[in-house]
């Protein structure tokens, strides 16, 4: 018996080889090499330090390309199409993703990373005055007909002016913009945004604790202790962002806004009023009759104001809820009220998750349409659930959702191998940057609560990489180990590259495998390390 005697087996074998070759792709990227070395009896185990992997860096490079290769008032790279109203969310959450990325490699702070975040903030703050209709202000605010707004009568100019792009009734932009600024200060300590950030926090404090004219009022202007957007609805998710921002602001600048009770009324309102039958959050609460309201929200549903937003698909007045609202809120409020997130997370999973298989699951957009998929809320709920699951240490749920989200799409690498993204054009091109961002968010070791804490004391004096041939390197680990006074650097070098390290008070030596590799060369007050192509686990002492 031989294969020659069996044509079918030969044909099957040939087809298998050819077909396997033609369909080869989408394999997982290489794992980060995490070695160990001993120097002066101190063991440096690289697995003990946070790290990025090759794909995460390639995804970051892709995101960076989207951000930096167009003018700040151009949004073509994002394929937003019919989703342009979501652009400012895209910029904001991309910034949070980048912050988790930067936090993983805090000792790598060159212009390459800093400018990416800086440009994103500029895009977020494009105004009508400067860019006309090619601006976030136009897309997010003016094009929706919200330019001027008053309280309590929305159209009466003699009442309290609460309108305007910069708030206070635009928390869905001001909250995110301020958080982007706060995270930039946390990550890069430039002081560039301190004044504007402080103005926002003070303005929120005024809205939440006074009647808007400076007279102390419980519940603030709108009586809910929360700030509206759209501009007459308070959302738990939108307010979770300025709450988180206030926490971070307090931690960076040693202020006591949170301790003063600025958000206490609102948090209580979210926890006791803005929830549905399962104690999860409802998706909005009307504080004022919307401009143009004709007496029905569709399907005959009548709105009670003030009162919960109602589900538009039903006429029984049930409250609107969504998985994305709950997941987003639980994620960003975990730092402030961890017990609530811990308690609600399993309920959230039980009510919204839809098992596709043991390996895959997604989140239904709404309890009122369980199992549905295809609407933006379904996708958003699934994305945010993944971020929340990572935060809760639920690696199984993270993996199952990631399998569902990424497996239907090909990984596309750039010709130079520096960038990667998922090709989502079969479903929606707009998903492409969303998928890249959430993939990083779901897989880096840093969580949202981690980002609420300021840098440790002395951090800004730690040695760090201040300049580098960024386009030729892959930085998997870069941080100062303060306990051992050592700079940990895990790097892949494509072409001979130099790195400038600042803040060393002596000429340091780079060790590899426990033996000296190279002494860094002094350049002014800095030191330069030159590396040939290769992968290095370096301890710089």
């Amino acid at each position, binding site marked *: *018996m031989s294969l020659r005697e*069996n*044509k*079918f*087996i030969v044909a*099957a*074998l040939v*087809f*298998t080889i050819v*077909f*396997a070759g*033609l*369909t*080869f*792709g*989408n*394999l*997982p990227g290489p794992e980060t090499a995490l070695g160990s070395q001993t120097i002066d009896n101190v063991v440096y185990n690289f697995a003990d330090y946070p790290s990025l992997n090759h794909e995460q860096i390639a995804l970051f490079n892709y995101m960076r390309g989207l951000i930096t290769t167009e003018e700040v008032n151009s949004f073509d790279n994002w394929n937003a199409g019919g989703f342009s109203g979501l652009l400012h969310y895209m910029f904001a959450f991309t910034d949070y993703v980048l912050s988790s990325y930067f936090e993983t490699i805090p000792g790598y702070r060159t212009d390459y990373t800093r400018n990416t975040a800086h440009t994103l903030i500029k895009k977020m703050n494009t105004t009508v005055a400067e860019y006309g209709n090619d601006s976030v202000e136009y897309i997010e605010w003016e094009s929706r007909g919200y330019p001027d707004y008053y309280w309590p009568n929305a159209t009466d100019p003699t009442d309290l002016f609460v309108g305007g792009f910069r708030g206070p009734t635009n928390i869905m932009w001001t909250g995110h913009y301020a958080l982007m600024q706060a995270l930039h200060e946390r990550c890069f300590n430039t002081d560039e945004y301190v004044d504007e950030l402080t103005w926002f926090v003070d303005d929120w404090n005024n809205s939440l604790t006074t009647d808007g004219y400076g007279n102390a009022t419980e519940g603030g202007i709108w009586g809910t202790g929360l700030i509206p957007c759209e501009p007459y609805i308070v959302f738990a998710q939108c307010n979770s962002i300025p709450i988180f921002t206030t926490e971070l602001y307090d931690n960076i600048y040693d202020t006591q806004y949170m301790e003063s009770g600025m958000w206490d009324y609102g948090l209580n309102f979210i926890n006791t009023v803005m929830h549905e039958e399962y104690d999860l959050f409802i998706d909005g609460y009307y504080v004022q009759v919307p401009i143009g309201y004709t007496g029905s929200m569709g399907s005959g549903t009548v709105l009670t104001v003030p009162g919960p937003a109602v589900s538009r698909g039903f006429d029984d007045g049930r409250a609107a809820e969504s998985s994305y609202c709950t997941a987003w809120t639980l994620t960003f409020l975990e730092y402030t009220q961890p017990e609530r997130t811990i308690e609600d997370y399993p309920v959230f999973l039980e009510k919204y998750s*839809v*098992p*596709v*298989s*043991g*390996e895959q699951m*997604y989140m239904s957009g709404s309890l009122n349409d*369980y*199992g*549905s*998929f*295809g609407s933006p809320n379904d996708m958003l709920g699934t994305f945010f659930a993944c971020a929340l699951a990572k935060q809760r240490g639920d690696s*199984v749920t993270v*993996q*199952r959702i990631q399998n*569902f989200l990424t*497996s*239907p*799409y*090909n990984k596309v690498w750039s010709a130079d191998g520096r960038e990667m993204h998922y*090709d989502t054009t*079969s479903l929606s091109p707009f998903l492409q940057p969303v998928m890249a961002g959430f993939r990083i968010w779901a897989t880096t070791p840093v969580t949202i609560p981690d980002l609420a804490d300021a840098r440790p004391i002395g951090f800004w004096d730690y040695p760090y990489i201040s300049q580098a041939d960024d386009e030729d390197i892959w930085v998997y680990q870069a941080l100062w180990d303060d306990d051992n006074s050592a700079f940990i650097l895990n790097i892949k070098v494509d072409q001979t590259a130099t790195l400038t390290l600042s803040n060393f008070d002596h000429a340091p030596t780079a060790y590899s495998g426990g033996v000296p590799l190279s002494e860094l060369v002094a350049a002014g007050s800095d030191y330069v390390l030159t590396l040939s192509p290769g992968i290095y686990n370096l301890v710089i002492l």
Partner: protein
Amino acid sequence: MSEGIADEHQGTNDLSVLEKFQVQSPEMILWTILYSLLGVGIYILIELIPMPYTMVSLFAFGFAPALAIIAIVGAIRGPIAGLLTGYLGTLLYDLLFYSTVVGMTLPYLAYGVLGFVVGLASYDMTNGRSLVKMSVLSAVGFVFTVLLVVVIGLTLGGVSTLVGIGFVMLPLLTIGLPSVFFLTPLFARLWYAVMLKFMPKALPQ
């Protein structure tokens, strides 16, 4: 032509149901269970290896060799062994690596159907036509598997139609059919060659 593990020309009609299912005696039951457990172990090991694939729209192209393991166990040891391998292999894999069991284990049973269907016939692994029959029955069994997985997902799992059809059925069919059609006979031939070399007496006459 040499004798295969069960000469199809002996006529399957002569075999009782118990014999066809390889459970006609305690010893045969034990061997069937052992084959199943071996199949489960190999299935899980292969499933752990990331396999390359390419997406074209919602169609997935590539190979899922673990599926062929279910089919080949059915071909070698009969429908019960195939059923158990598919059922327990997929169930244990999800349980061990995702701490998850879905749909009251019914979707896993659907994978068992693949092995069951393939095991219903007898094969001569030295004969090309017999291997073609194995391929065809593997494909038929897998179609049943996919339909059951989708129906169970849509009904018990509450999965949306879009997901059930677009994200489950289409990719599963397009990656699974070539896998069971081409890999099952290749694995069968490989198994036969190994057994012939190292354990020829274990091959049924």
